[in-house]
């Protein structure tokens, strides 16, 4: 004679679920990891004699930040809000100005020849510069490059850079490289 299966009391299920929920609320975080991604230059070999790579003066835009977060770009004091346009003008060099970076004809795979700018933005800071100002400047420089890339992508593919497929993004990246160099620290008062 089979006994009828007794029904399991599910009344405490909610309590158990609440316990689990609260546990997960406590031990997990929700913050999204986001930020400005950079690639540091490799350390020069110490044994190797350091031969300064001669870069033509016109190809470098020196951006300096001093102790009081003052900004100097290409030899003139300016506000951070003006830096983006300065950087864009420097990288684009639309009128082939002799004081702005030269361009080199390069064969880009899948696209054809394109005159790639040889401009390098060199970002220098002192030990007293605040991190906030530094990130702000980095952000403006990245924004300048991103805007140029967007313009290039729009003109050639009719889409924004981010909407392009992998292969075309590479073409855009090759055509407009992000040459922001974080120079060797040169400041005084460094204890080591």
């Amino acid at each position, binding site marked *: 004679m089979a006994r009828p299966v007794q029904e399991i009391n599910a009344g405490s299920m909610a309590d158990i679920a609440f316990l689990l929920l609260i546990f997960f609320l406590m031990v997990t975080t929700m913050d999204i*990891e986001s930020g400005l991604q950079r690639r540091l230059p490799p350390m020069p070999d110490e044994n190797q004699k350091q031969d300064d790579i001669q870069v033509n003066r016109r190809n470098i835009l020196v951006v300096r930040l001093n102790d009081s977060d003052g900004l100097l770009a290409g030899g003139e004091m300016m506000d951070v809000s003006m830096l983006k346009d300065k950087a864009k003008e420097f990288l684009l060099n639309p009128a082939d100005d002799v004081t702005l970076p030269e361009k080199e004809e390069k064969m880009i795979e899948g696209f054809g020849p394109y005159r790639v700018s040889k401009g390098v933005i060199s970002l220098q800071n002192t030990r007293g510069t*605040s991190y906030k100002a530094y990130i702000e400047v980095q952000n403006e420089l990245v924004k300048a490059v991103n805007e140029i890339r967007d313009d290039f992508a729009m003109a050639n593919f009719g889409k924004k850079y981010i909407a392009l497929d992998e292969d075309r993004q590479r073409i855009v990246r090759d055509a407009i490289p992000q040459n922001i160099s974080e120079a060797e620290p040169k400041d005084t008062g460094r204890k080591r």
Partner: protein
Amino acid sequence: MAKFNKKGKKGVPALSTASLPDIVFMILFFFMVSTSMRQTDRLVTVKVPEATEIAKLERKDLAAYIYVGTPIPSRQAQFGTDARIQLNDAFKSVNDIRDFIAAERETLSEADRQFMTVSIKADENVRMGIITDIKQELRRTSALKIMYNARKADTHFGN
């Protein structure tokens, strides 16, 4: 017919809580999927600077974190209010970064090591001196992929 109305008065029928577990489980699963386990206890206060051109870190599991900021109030008596570096669960100096990176590399598989990103979570008020030291140390250990942690700016200035 006394059998059918045991109680004389008709009360409000009890609210069925049978679907409560389902609802709670739904919330639970949402949190399980959308959050990640907290790795370390924060010993420094970090308010990352704002930026507009931020990119998301694709592989969170390949990241090593370096926290820079002033110690939390309960630790200030011991460590002062000057900006400090936190690696894992302890205050460390710049010279310890080398070991830290080596240890982090060890935890990754051979194929993933080259993609390791060092995420620098620094407070917006720290000075660049300490960041420069960290960067130099990272270059020495050839951990070249770095990310300056930043949060999305709410207001855009300029355009």
